[in-house]
């Protein structure tokens, strides 16, 4: 049969109800983002060293030499690959006494810091679909970043107890009147960087205290009171927060305050909070090192044992301090997505890239190793945004090696060169 059931490997929703026609190379039922992933596009043709095409073995030999000769390499990325590859990546980082960091560092890692402080009252997307009668998107815009999330879990999904859009109230708190905001019942427009005080005001109002001002962060006291009442009176509420909260002033403290708000709400009703994770396995890029060495990101192995400190060992801190002398970038594109102050150092040091597609990091990489696309050309395990593990499939054959195979060979070569 030409049409096969597949699992999408674009965003953190990891849709497991999509199909792919292997003969026509055609995605079916996907959103625009998933369709782009499962469509034909330019690939890195072959492994390369300084722009010259070489064999996989030669590229891996060169990559191993760079890593072994470096005093402190940075191994960064990991959000768009499978857990099996990430596991090898953590072992490799330990072997070369490098720094392990992953895409959440510039995405949802502030939430990880908040969870360390406060914990997280969460739920699976299934539970939310079945039960939530109040859905709040706070600084998140699923209509553009997770297009099928509203349909499958949060807005119009048909759940066990909540039968559809009419049974749910949807609120959007955002700086912009986004596409998601236009579909909401209530839109609360806040000023950039005012998430923290708005959350604090809601905490006060929910406790029954008065606030001594007419507006907070651009939101009128009246609207804040309405929102507080809505939250208190919900049977089962959820806040899905996005980068509007983690990348703005306050960062981790915003999430910490939001978790405290949820803890308070649970004295009155059932309420949960969950991050809208971006890449399909960015959860794995944190969970795998967490079960391997105890930490999710910003992990330094230079002393031979793992140390966690985002102020020192996150990719942007390391690069801006010029505290790494080589980098391996896998399944990510820091040259496009890091501030220019960090990119400057990446341009100066030897860079190894492992990725299926050419991107801006390819332009600065000395060694480029093309890889197979998980979910299409390689199989492996990924964690959906709520931590549910899903086995993504291989449905077409390829000459490209999987990240897992590349890292396995690279690890062998590193061990050999180090004479262990």
């Amino acid at each position, binding site marked *: 049969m030409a049409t096969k059931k597949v699992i999408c490997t*674009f*965003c953190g929703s990891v849709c497991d109800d999509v199909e792919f026609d292997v003969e026509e190379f055609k995605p079916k039922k996907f959103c*625009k*983002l998933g*369709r*782009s*992933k499962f469509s034909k*596009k*330019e690939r890195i043709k072959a492994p390369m060293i300084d722009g010259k095409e070489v064999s996989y073995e030669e590229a891996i030999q060169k990559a191993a030499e760079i890593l072994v000769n470096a005093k402190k390499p940075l191994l960064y990325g990991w959000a768009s690959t499978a857990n099996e590859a990430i596991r090898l990546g953590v072992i490799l980082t330990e072997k070369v006494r490098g720094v392990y*960091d992953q895409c959440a*560092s*510039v995405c949802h*890692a*502030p939430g990880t*810091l908040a969870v360390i402080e406060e914990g997280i009252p969460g739920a699976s997307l299934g539970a939310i679909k079945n039960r939530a009668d109040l859905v709040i998107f706070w600084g998140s*815009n699923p*209509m*553009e*970043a997770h*297009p099928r999330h509203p349909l499958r879990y949060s807005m119009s999904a048909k759940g066990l107890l909540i039968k559809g859009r009419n049974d749910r109230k949807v609120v959007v708190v955002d*700086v*912009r*009147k*986004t*596409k998601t905001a236009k579909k909401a019942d209530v839109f609360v*427009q806040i000023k*950039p*960087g005012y998430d923290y005080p708005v959350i604090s005001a809601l905490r006060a109002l929910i406790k029954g205290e008065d606030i001594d001002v007419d507006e907070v962060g651009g939101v009128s006291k009246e609207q804040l009171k309405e929102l507080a009442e809505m939250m208190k009176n919900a049977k089962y509420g959820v806040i899905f927060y996005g*980068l*509007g909260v983690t*990348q*703005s*002033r306050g*960062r981790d403290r915003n999430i910490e305050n939001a978790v405290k708000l949820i803890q308070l709400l649970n004295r009155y009703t059932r309420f949960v909070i969950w991050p809208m994770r971006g890449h399909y396995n960015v959860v794995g890029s944190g969970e795998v090192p967490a079960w391997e060495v105890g930490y999710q*990101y*910003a992990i330094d192995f230079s002393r031979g044992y793992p140390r966690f400190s*985002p*102020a020192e060992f*996150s*990719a*942007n*801190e390391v690069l*801006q301090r010029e505290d790494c002398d080589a980098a391996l970038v896998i399944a990510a*594109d820091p*040259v*496009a*997505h*890091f*501030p*220019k*102050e*960090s*990119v400057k150092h990446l*341009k100066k040091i030897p860079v190894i890239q492992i990725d*299926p*597609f050419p*991107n*801006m990091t390819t*332009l*600065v990489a000395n060694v480029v190793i093309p890889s197979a696309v998980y979910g299409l050309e390689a199989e492996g395990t990924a964690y959906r945004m709520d931590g549910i593990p899903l086995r993504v499939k291989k449905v077409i054959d390829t000459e490209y090696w999987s990240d897992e195979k590349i890292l396995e060979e690279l690890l062998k070569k590193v061990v050999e060169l180090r004479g262990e």
Partner: protein
Amino acid sequence: MVKSMIEVEVISGRTLDQGATVEEKLTDEYFKAVNYCELNEEDYNTLGLAEGDRVKVKTEFGEVVVFAKKSDELPKGVAFIPMGPYANQIIDPSTDSTGMPQYKGIKATIEKTDEKVLSVKELLEVI
């Protein structure tokens, strides 16, 4: 009243087109998906902008030339640039010890310019 410069707060973020072209960064489609700055209609008119016009966005941390677009999603005084290499020329790189640069809520000035919008490759050269 038309002014030559306005003050705004810039935020960057995901768009559907940016996401759909994120694995094709060296194509024209990606270039088009990330090389613009959206402004509220009032701000857009204050600068006397028309379709195809370019603006220079300047912050304490850098400057970048991008195309200007009108948006009905933004309040006055807030500008939006899709996440990517253009936005990253002007965002605040410091992480306040969290590891996270400040990608959203950066004070900026915006002015109309005749300078050209650099390609993705040219942008990388000037960093």
